[in-house]
Structures are given as C-alpha cells and as structure tokens.
C-alpha cells in the first residue's frame, strides 16, 4: 500500500495494468487463491473486492479464467428494498465482502473485468442494471445508494469514474450522463489524486480528449507537488492514467 509495506493485491494489480510489470504479475499469480479470488480474511468475512482488478491484470489464460469464474459465482447478497433504502431488488451486483450487499465500486470493478475478459457473461447485464439503479438523482454515482432515508446522495468523482470505466460501451445514455457529471465533479475534487487519476482514466477510455488534457495537467501538478500523499493505490491509478497507450486497450 505504501513503500516498504507488504505487497497487496489491489495496488499490485493496478501496477501491472499501468506498467505491464512481469514480476508484479507473477506475484499476483502466486497470491491468487484456489477459488480464483484475491481475498483478505476479516474474521468470518472475506474481502474479495480485488478480484476484478486481479483478473484484468493476470491477462489472458487459465488464471484469469479462474478469477472470472469466481466473479460470476460470487455476486452479492440479494437484499430487499425498504422505505429507508429503496432499490431495484432484481439487480444484485458485487460487494466488498463475500455474502454481503452490493456497492458501486466493487460492482464496477467486476464489470470491467467481465466486459474485457468474458464479454458474453450473463452477469454483465446485472451489473449494468445495478449501476443504472444506483445512479445519483442528477447523474454520476455515490459510493453506495441513490437515496437513503429520503436524502438524495451526491455523486463523487472517484466512484463516478469507476462506474464509467466499467460501463464502457454498455449503456450510452447512462455513460453520457455520467460523463457530464464527471466533467463537472473532477474540477471540484481536483485536490485529490485518486479522484483525478480515476477521472483521467475514465475520460481517456471514453474518448473525452479535452477533459482528459485538462485533468492530465492537473494530475501532473498534483503528483509533482504532493506525490499523492504516497498512497500506493492512488499512485498506481495515476500511472495507469498517464500510460502512453490508452487504458481502453487493457485486456
């Protein structure tokens, strides 16, 4: 996560995607679990949310297939819609931890991996349905829900970017609204390296060249000035955002 700490699956997978680093890919392959996931045990819970990024980073082959098999078989717990949190019960998505309920970011990651690695997967439609259901009232995505206890939850740049990266080419109207929202949000949240970097990836994969240029300038300045607080995940996203080949070519 930071320099000098033990390696972890999420930043390692991002580093592979950004730098095409063979040693990092080998580390990932060695740390993939028997069930195909990349997981952390948290008492009786299993945080398997790095599996989508791991699948992308492994590249084509049997290891990626195992990770995608895991994703297809480990969707979130189906939950009921309530007055407090009204949702589309039919949309399931992916969770931070196995056996719990879905959230935007892990769903977006799984969708990205399946869209690239297994575009025929029936679960892709479910992921798109979930992101459509969770879309904030004025476009974009919060980290969780659209409405809680009667409050419309605001969208954020990082979660909106994550959803847009996953959705590429799957729902043009939803993507268009999300991109419009991200075009507004990234400037508001440009003090944050993770927001800027993920927004830049989203702009690049969606071909928004003008926004990408402006976000790149801001990200360069922030990296030079702050090193993104040495946050390994944010730095890996920045490297991915800045790589010469478009992140769209991942896969």
């Amino acid at each position, binding site marked *: *996560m*930071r320099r000098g*700490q*033990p390696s*972890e699956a*999420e930043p390692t997978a991002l580093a592979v995607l950004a730098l095409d680093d063979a040693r990092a890919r080998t580390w990932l392959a060695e740390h993939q679990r028997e069930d195909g996931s990349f997981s*952390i045990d*948290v*008492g*009786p*819970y299993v*945080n398997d*949310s790095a599996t989508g990024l791991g699948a992308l980073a492994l590249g084509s082959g049997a290891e990626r297939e195992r990770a995608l098999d895991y994703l297809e078989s480990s969707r979130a717990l189906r*939950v009921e819609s*309530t007055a*407090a*949190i009204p*949702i589309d019960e039919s949309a399931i998505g992916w*969770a*931070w*931890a196995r056996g*719990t*309920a*879905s*959230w935007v*970011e*892990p769903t977006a990651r799984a969708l990205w991996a399946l869209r690239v690695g297994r575009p025929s997967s029936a679960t892709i439609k479910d992921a798109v349905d979930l992101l459509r259901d*969770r879309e904030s009232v004025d476009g974009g995505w*919060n*980290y*969780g*829900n659209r409405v*809680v*206890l*009667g*409050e419309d*939850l*605001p969208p*954020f*740049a*990082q979660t909106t970017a994550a959803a847009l990266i996953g959705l590429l080419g799957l729902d043009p109207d939803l993507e268009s609204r999300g991109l419009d929202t991200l075009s507004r949000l990234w400037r508001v*949240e440009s*003090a*944050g*390296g*993770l*927001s800027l970097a993920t927004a830049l990836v989203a702009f690049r994969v969606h071909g928004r060249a003008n926004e990408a240029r402006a976000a790149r300038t801001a990200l360069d300045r922030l990296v030079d000035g*702050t090193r*993104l*607080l*040495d*946050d*390994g*995940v*944010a730095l890996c996203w920045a490297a991915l955002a800045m790589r010469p080949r478009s992140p769209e070519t991942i896969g």
Partner: protein
Amino acid sequence: MVAGGVSLRRLLREPQPWDEAAFRPPGTAHVAVLTASGYDSGLEVTVLEGLRAIGADVRGANVLLKPNLVEFDPTTAINTEPRLIAAAVLAFRRLGAASVRVGEGPGHRRDVQDVVTRSGLAEALTGVEAPFVDLNAAAVRRVTLRSHYTDLGELWLPAPVLDADVVVSMPKMKTHHWAGVTLSLKNLFGTLPGRVYGWPKNILHWAGIEPSILDIGGAVRPSYAIIDGIVGMEGNGPISGDPIESGVLVFSNDPVAADSIGASLMGSDPERIPYITEAGRFLGQADRDRIEQRGEDPEGLIRSFAPPPLGAGIAAG
C-alpha cells in the same frame, strides 16, 4: 449498500462478552465541559485548560489524534473542525508530548487527499507542522479481540494506532442515523482501514454497528477524548444533518464518560443509547455518580439536537 446489522440487544443475552483479565472494572472518570464561542482564537488555551482539568499526562508520549473526517460538504459540519485539531496538536506539545500526529481513515470517501485538503485539515496541520497519517493506507497488524460483541474475533488495525502511546479520540458531536450519536467511541470506526473493511467500513456494518463500536473500543482503548461540540450536527447525521451551534468542548480521560456527558449535552439520555450503557460495563465509566465533572455545569449547556431519522436495525451507506 445495505447491511443486516447484528442486534446488540440479542448479544446482550451473553452475560459477559469480554475477557475479564483484559479489562479492569471502570474506575472514577474525569470529564471537563468548557464553552467556546467559535474556532477563531484562543482555542489552544481552551484545549490546554480542558486537558489539565482532566489530568492529562502525555509527557514523553507519542500521541495520535484521531479526528472525525468523513467526507467534505461546505454547507454543513460533518468533520471535526481543523482549527480545533491544530489547537490540540499545540496543546499536547505544551503538555510535553514527544510527538503528535493526526491519523484518520475516512469512512466514506476513498480519496483521503481530497477530503484532507478541501476540509482545510491539510492547511491547518501545515500551520502547526504536524503530520497526517492516512489510516486507510497505513501498514496493518492483526489484533485478537478481548471482547466478543461481534463475530470478528480479530481486527486489522493500523500500525500508527497500535504504536501510539496515547490515542485521543476527537469526534464531532453529531447525530447518527444508525447508531443514534457519533461521539468518541463511534469515531473509532475510522481507525480501521477501508482497504480491509471496505467503504464505508461495510464489514463492520454487517458485523453490527453497535457490537463493532464496542469491540473496536475494546481494542483501541483511547486514553483521552475531546469532543468538538462548538458547532455540532443535528438531524440526519452523520453526513446529511444540519449545523447546530452548541458552543461546548468535552474533555475526558475516559471515552465512555465523555460519550455519556456528550450525549446529555445533545439532549439525549445516554442510558437509552445501548452501546454507551454496555460500554459502561467494561470499557469505561457511564455511572454519573462516578464521573467527576470539572469546568462548566453541563446542565446549563444542554442543546436539544434534532434527532436523526433512525434506520430500524439496518445499516447502509
């Protein structure tokens, strides 16, 4: 997005869900309530006065201040005010601390840099030359729990928390739509790293918010609490409520006593907040007769915070 919380009431059928050897029976606690009209000037002196009133001894200690930093919205009062945090840094140094750091793992936003910068905390800490530690990204170690309100058995805790001699919980005084109130115990959710527990620390919601508050409190054991009630949040807290000027700071050497008095200052009956009552059995002092109060008389400072629209037994983002 939705979590099925574990009922604290069900867990309380257990006679004693903690290891007796790990928790001495709560003794007498000290609480000081001081008034402050704003954040602009004189805060360091007020904080120093509060810490002295509760007998804070941090000479030679490495101190970690744990504020409440969730997400940033300029229209309301979600976070512990950065000027108060900076004043606390200076006050702890004046009391002889060897080092003072500020650490938080924001529960909602992954982009800590954005929250730290836009909230004004980065600038405030630069002004007092104090480092910020992102607890969502810090190195972690597994710690076996000595209380068993959740089924977690262990926690992944950041090294900066475990290695600090003194942890100071510095919450915002605010309502919380799932837990009732956010005070010094609930604030400790932010010590757990999101990269392990998800956002917004979702695994803890599944393990049960109130049971998690108790187990985290039992693992982190903050030495002191400073509650920012100068401007609190009422209504739909912890993020969507409204600012309320209550003009108080609460200091204590016991997080349970701090929360008991803090809840009272919000117009709530702490005995009706189950996790505070339960924490009073093993983690700290909730018995008013055994809380020595210094500073102002809390009775005259009570502001009735508008209650949150409580979610019945569920937890969510």
